[in-house]
Structures are given as C-alpha cells and as structure tokens.
C-alpha cells in the first residue's frame, strides 16, 4: 500500500521524511496500542501535581491502608499514598528512557553508519568493538559501575545505560546502511558530486528513519527495565520517588507477605505497561522497516 502511494507522489515535490512512517503507523494496531499507553504516561509525567497534589514522599496518612476512595491503591508501610507515588514516579523513568534512548541511538547511528560508510579496516575495527560491547552482560557491568559511585544520580544512571545500550542498534544500522550503500539513488548522488556528509545526512539517513526509531524504542525499553531493576536492588537514589524505588521499599518491608500487595503490584504493573508500550512500538517500526514481517491477510484477500 505505502509503496504505491509513495510512487504516486509527484516528483517535483520533495517527500517529507517520515510521512510514510506516520501513515504506516496509523494502520498498525500494535503501534496504536503502544502509542496510547505512552501518551497516558506522558500526561502523568507532564502534570503530576495536578493529578496528585502535595509531596508524595511525605508520610501523611495511616500506614498500610487498603484500597479505598481516598487511596485508590492504598497506602505504603510508611503512610504514603501509593497512587500519588506512582503518578510522581512517572517523570523520572520517562526521562531516563527518553534521554538514554536519544543518546544511545545517536551513538548507534554514528558508529553503525560510519562503519558501513568508511569500510575496510575501519569497518572491521568498529564492528569488532560493537560486537565486544554487545556480548558483555549489561546488568552486572552497570551494577559494578553503580556500586563504585557513592552518590547515585540520574546522570550516572543515564550515562551507564548509554555506554552499555548502543551496540545492538549500531549493528542493525550498519547492516541496513551497507545494504543501502550500493543502491542507485546513492550512486546518483555520488556521481552528482555531492559531499559524503551531504549524502549521509540528506540521502541515506531519511531512508533509515523507521529502523532508527525502532532502535530508539528498543533502547528505551531496555533502559526502563534496567533502570528499574537497578533501583529495585537499591542502586538508585533510595530517597527519590520512582517506580523502581517503590518496589525496593515494598520488598524491603515485605509488602507481599504482609498483605500490602498493591504497593508492589501497581508500580511493577506501570513498569510492565511502559516497557510493553516501547516493545509494541519497536515491533511496529520493525515491521515498517521490514515489510516481510507484516501480516499477510490482505495479500491473500
């Protein structure tokens, strides 16, 4: 569908990069579901004080209350409102996901496309470097790095996630750039005498948009899971309000065994929902960049 529409666009007007991506997404149910969940969390992250006013960390209520009209998900063992903490915890995790996603994706593009474009010895070295980083298990490495930082901040967390999270994307982008490299439209640009930087930025990258976005989603997914995992074992800032830290305290206070299961269930469900939304979007963009994976029903008709 998309391909025929694109071909019908008059040659005089320059095609806006990403327009086909937007169109393909609107027709993909998985992408739509992922987007809806993401928008929900973005709203929570944007205006937490309107939704749940007051300091979520203050112990203002009775301890370990059950769910009620006043406390939608009950209160914690310290007398904080679980719902309010969940709402306020959205911003830090989204920030971690988006920032590490952006920086790691930039790094992937830089290294992956350079490897494909420079070729020869550079390609060998960069690919080898990518593969080495790729197979080293991330969490133990990040745990060791975080273990050495006495003062744990968002910056340290994001830096660790970026350093360890770029390699898979670099590998994929290199493969796609390699397969695009020999195409006629790039050859034409080269014959026209365009500079290499122009070819890469204006001709090559727009054609890799959906894979780049898929990679962003992948890093965001991985960052949400790794960051909350680290916070859960107490390697985050334990005085801050975020989902992983809530789970840390819930586990610390044996919430499951003492009938306060909402304290553990709700923040974990939020982590699962947010990462599912990134997983769905990642999957959808994978399908956009690789049409072979799309559902076949329409073809059989």
């Amino acid at each position, binding site marked *: 569908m998309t391909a025929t529409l694109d071909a019908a666009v008059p040659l005089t007007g320059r095609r806006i990069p990403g327009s086909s991506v937007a169109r393909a997404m609107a027709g993909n149910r998985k992408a739509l579901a992922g987007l809806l969940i993401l928008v929900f969390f973005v709203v929570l992250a944007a205006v937490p004080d309107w939704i749940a006013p007051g300091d979520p960390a203050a112990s203002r209520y009775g301890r370990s209350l059950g769910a009620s009209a006043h406390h939608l998900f009950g209160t914690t063992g310290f007398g904080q409102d679980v719902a309010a903490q969940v709402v306020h915890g959205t911003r830090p995790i989204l920030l971690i996901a988006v920032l590490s996603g952006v920086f790691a994706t930039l790094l992937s593009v830089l290294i992956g496309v350079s490897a494909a474009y420079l070729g020869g010895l550079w390609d060998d070295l960069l690919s080898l470097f990518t593969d080495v980083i790729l197979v080293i298990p991330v969490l133990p490495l990040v745990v060791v790095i975080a273990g*050495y930082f*006495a003062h744990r901040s968002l910056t340290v967390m994001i830096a660790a996630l970026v350093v360890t999270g770029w390699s898979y994307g670099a590998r994929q982008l290199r493969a796609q750039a390699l397969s695009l490299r020999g195409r006629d439209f790039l050859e034409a640009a080269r014959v026209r005498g365009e500079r290499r930087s122009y070819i890469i930025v204006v001709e090559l990258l727009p054609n890799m948009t959906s894979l780049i976005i898929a990679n962003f989603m992948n890093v965001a997914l991985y960052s949400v899971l790794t960051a909350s995992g680290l916070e859960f074992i107490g390697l985050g800032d334990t005085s801050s309000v975020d989902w992983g830290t809530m789970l840390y305290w819930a586990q610390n206070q044996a919430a499951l065994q003492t009938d306060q299961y909402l304290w553990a269930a709700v923040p974990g469900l939020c982590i699962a929902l947010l990462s599912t939304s990134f997983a769905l979007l990642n999957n959808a963009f*994978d399908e956009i960049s690789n049409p072979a*994976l799309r559902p076949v029903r329409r073809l059989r008709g």
Partner: protein
Amino acid sequence: MKFVLRRLGFFLLTLWAALTINFAIPRLLPGSPITSLMARYHGRLQGAPLKAVEAELGVDNHDSLLTQYLTYLKNCARFDFGKSVQYFPESVSHQVGSALPWTLGLVGVTTVLAFVLGTGIGAVSAWRRGGRLDAVLPPVFVVATGLPYFWVAMMLILVFAVAHPWLPTAFGSDEGLTAGFNADFISSVLQHAILPSVTILISSIGVWVLIMRNSMVTTLAEDYVRMARAKGLPGRRIMWDYAARNAMLPSLTGFAICIGGVVSGAVLVEYVFAYPGVGYMLVQAVENEDFPMMQALFLLITVAVLLAVLLADIATAVLDPHTRTAR
C-alpha cells in the same frame, strides 16, 4: 574449521576486553575497598594491621599501572581474586565457587529450555502464518518481552506462595537437610527451583519466539521451500528439515546477542528469591561494598555468557555448511 577458529579468536578478544574493563573500573571510578573496610571497622584499623589488610586486598600500590595490570592478569589466570571484604578473611574464589553450581543449575537449564521451547513455538507460529495461533501468539510474546523479570518473580510469589502457600518463596533448599544425593534434599531443591525457573521462562521465552518467527517467515518464502512443496514432501518434513533448520541460524546469532540480557534478568530473579547463586551474591556484594567480590562475580558472569556465545557459534558451524568451507 576456520569459522570456529575465528570465533574462538573473538572469544579470547572479548575475554581480554572484559578483563581490562574490570581492571579499569576501580581505577577510574571513585570508591575503594579499603575505605569501605575502614568504615566497617569504624576507623580502628591503623598502622601494621592496616598495612597487612592493604597487602591482602592488593591496594598497597606504588607499582606502575603496567605492573599492576600484569599482576592482575596473572592472578585472574590462577583464579585468585583476593580476599572478600564481606567474609574477610575468606577468599573470594572460595565463596564464588560455592554459589556457581546453583546458578548453573537454575539459569543454565532454564535458558536452554526457554530457547528450545521458544524456537519451537516461533517456528510453528510462522508455519501457520495468518492462522489463529499466529494472530494471538506474537502480540502476547511482544508483551512478555516487556515484563520486568523481578516483578514477574514478585507476582508469582504473591499468587503461588502467599495467597496459596503451595511453593517456597526463598532460598535454594530447606534448612536442616544435608546437601548431597539424597531424596529429601533433591526434592527440596527442585521445589525451590520451580518459581525462579518459571519466572525466567516467562520473561525470556518471548525473545526467542519473536526472533525465530521473524526469521522463519523470511525462510519460508525461499525457493528451496517452494521446491520441497512442489516435490510433495510432507509438511512436517518441510517445516523442520528445510525451513526451521535454516531459520535457526539467525536464531543462534540472536541467542548470542540476547543471552546477556537473560542472564542480567536472572541476577534479579535470584535476588528476589534469595537464591544462593552468583546473582544474589553480586547484589549482596554491592550492598556490602565488597569490591573484590563484585569484580570476580562480574568476570565470572561475563565468562559464562561468552562461553554460551561460543557454544552457539559451534552449533552454527554444525548446522550451516557455509561455515565449514574455508572462507
């Protein structure tokens, strides 16, 4: 053979990289084993005892960085990772050695099971593409890849141990049993392994299903599959011997890429279940600022993952005739 040799070279290179990262981290980042040990003894450690401890921990360094590095490599080759801060004066390798069998049993067996099961489901799902099974399974497994391991673990505990006290929630076996080949101990170990291994299975299987399905979908469009159909071969034969065998190759590469993530998740699962493996030990080492232990465990987990990758490479060499001809 050339392929296997090249992958062996990659294994050695990655091993060296991991060793070097491990060497660099404590020297680049703030925090040191001696300050944490000092805090533990409330600053009462001074003079000769301090010197002795420093020598034991290997931080009395006035040597050049190169000498330190060579000594470090030599010690690693002899599995000598110094003394643990947490269990001082026990050696790190002794502690780690006692945790290793637990993790190999739990994570090793479960990962192989998840890979085999997931790859099978992926192959069947692609084979029946467009069918009812294929409409339901992929979205379900996409969602499964988004589930945090540790949260799945907590929810399983909630349902199968707290709400219905069917299974144990923590530790590797019941207390008071003598470890060894006796029925009581083995059944207790198996019982304790059920929830952690189901957790790892649920959280990791989606990855293998999706990789296999996507690769199988591409393979099924190949001419040799059409040829097999034209010859009138039975469907089962085409599916496994023609399509799945070839579609497995990207799956094995995927295994090499994703195994690190699975092991990372397993670390957290062990922590939730207080399972006496290396993952739980790693978290405890961080909590107690036991730096020598942390580093040995990071190294051990990395080597285990690298060995798994090497095994996947060898499997690739067995399955793919391309790799056997010299390139």
